[in-house]
């Protein structure tokens, strides 16, 4: 009997199965561990201040991975969607007068939806392009968003939008990060995920088996934009100020670097890479002037020794438990 048939068991017990219980235990365990570490004074203030950015970068990287890793299209406009989310959410919470919980939750949803709407408007015409062309158009899109924000009154222009309530904290970020991870992992392991991956592998063959390629490409793009928008809202409410300069193409590239280092098409890899690449610049702070130089050197070294990303490493070593990776690498 083949392994695949045995894996049928994973579909048998619906919600309550061993895999889901382990996943839930890990999620709660990590949360409690970090709370204990911060409350117990093991993590200093600097480390604590990194928790929210790490979560935000994980959300950004995992959502970009849906487009770049799973759909196989290079998008360089992820910071643009983040900007839309950040400004929409911030403007909402500044002007709305509601209890904190409801206001922030609504702000997050609105930010995500606004980014998703833009994702749809841009995706429909742009996703007809492929490869380099798509990369250039999305790059242009990100810059256009930044320029528009620069000129608008309600966004505070180049000076930035100030006095955003500081709602983002560790708990909010952690919960939203977990939701993002679960949603995207679930999606990738569903029939939609298979369709998205099949388009990446061979879009002509995908069409030949009845897949409406542009519809599912747009779908993946919109979902990624939504989560980028959500990450943007968290970002704005963490710093209490957002400037157009925060969302330039450097930010998009930064997210892309995380995705590539983690491994294209690997959710777990993106998480690990996001953690490392968020902490790294802070750890290098001690080296002062050489900080960005060392960051680049470390990055190059990591890519050289880890050229296929963390995913292959994880899969090959078999040391880490398989949560629910979609791609079964079985070299024979």
């Amino acid at each position, binding site marked *: 009997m*083949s*392994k*695949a*048939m045995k*894996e*049928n068991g994973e*579909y*048998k017990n*619906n*919600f309550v199965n061993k895999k889901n219980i382990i996943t839930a235990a890990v999620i709660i365990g990590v949360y409690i561990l970090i709370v204990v570490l911060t409350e117990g004074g093991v993590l200093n203030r600097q480390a604590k201040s990194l928790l929210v950015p790490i979560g935000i970068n994980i959300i950004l990287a995992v959502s970009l991975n849906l487009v770049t890793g799973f759909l196989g299209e290079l998008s360089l406009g992820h910071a643009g969607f983040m900007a839309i989310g950040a400004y929409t959410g911030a403007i909402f919470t500044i002007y709305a007068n509601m209890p904190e919980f409801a206001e922030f939750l609504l702000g997050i949803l609105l930010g995500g939806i606004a980014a998703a709407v833009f994702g749809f408007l841009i995706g429909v015409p742009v996703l007809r392009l492929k490869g380099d062309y798509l990369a250039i158009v999305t790059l242009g899109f990100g810059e256009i968003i930044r320029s528009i924000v620069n000129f608008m009154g309600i966004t505070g222009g180049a000076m930035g939008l100030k006095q955003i309530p500081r709602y983002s904290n560790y708990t909010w970020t952690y919960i939203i990060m977990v939701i993002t991870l679960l*949603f995207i992992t*679930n*999606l990738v*392991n*569903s*029939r*939609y*995920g*298979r*369709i998205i*991956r*099949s388009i*990446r*592998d*061979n879009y*002509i*063959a*995908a*069409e*030949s*088996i*009845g*897949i*409406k*390629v542009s519809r599912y490409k747009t*779908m993946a793009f919109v979902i990624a934009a939504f989560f980028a928008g959500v990450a943007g809202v968290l970002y704005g409410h963490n710093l209490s100020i957002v400037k157009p300069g925060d969302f330039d193409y450097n930010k998009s590239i930064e997210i892309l670097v995380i995705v590539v280092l983690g491994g294209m*098409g690997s959710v777990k890899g993106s998480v690990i890479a996001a953690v490392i690449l968020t902490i790294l610049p802070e750890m290098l702070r001690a080296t002062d002037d050489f900080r960005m130089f060392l960051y680049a050197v470390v990055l190059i070294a990591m890519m050289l020794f880890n050229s296929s990303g963390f995913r292959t490493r994880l899969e090959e070593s078999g040391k880490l438990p398989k949560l629910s990776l979609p*791609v*079964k*690498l*079985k*070299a*024979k």
Partner: protein
Amino acid sequence: MALLEVKNLGISFGGLRAVDNVNFDIEKGQLYGLIGPNGAGKTTVFNLLTGVYRPTDGTIKLGGIDIVGKSPSEICQAGIARTFQNIRLFKKMSVLDNVKTALHNQIRYSLVTGFFHLPAYFKAEREMDEKAMEILRVFDLDGQADYLASNLPYGKQRKLEIARGLATNPKLLLLDEPAAGMNPNETAELMETIRLVRDRYQITILLIEHDMKLVSGICEKILVLNFGTELAAGAPEEVLNNPEVITAYLGE
């Protein structure tokens, strides 16, 4: 009424007339062969039938319904599945997932179900697994269900492509050189499989092939193309002994 009726089919690429005035009818359940020398326009006919190219002239009717101008995905949903001359698998996906992807139009669930993995997800996935494994068993691929498609040997990749096409539940299956690159044993085995598939799934098959043993062995009717036009049509023994066909293949 014939399952597939092709009338006056033609396409021009600029000044090049790649296919010109091709007519044929395929009856339900038939095993039909399309042969011809290199560059005769066989694959172009496949691309016209599956909507990759839009014909400049002519009509294509599947079960009496005109399918000209429909997109490849719509034509697949109308009931035509195909394989490719240069194998086009989803290489970084498992063998099982390749087939399961092709089941997407038959077993569906909503995006919300996909996001939350609601009970409907597990039921549908189980159903898909069963159906996909059943198809893989026909092609003797069930033992390699969890291999990456790119790790399969060449002959099995060809089979997987047929399995994937079959999973879309087609009325008509187009096979573009299914035996290319296979040794005589593999070809013989493939012939058996093709016949079995036709009988078991009650489908019609149109195939392009250069291996005359395979063609004469399983095809009930053959159409010969040369320079984009029909050269001959009829039963295999009669067509393959036609002097014009022999000339087209071997020269004067």
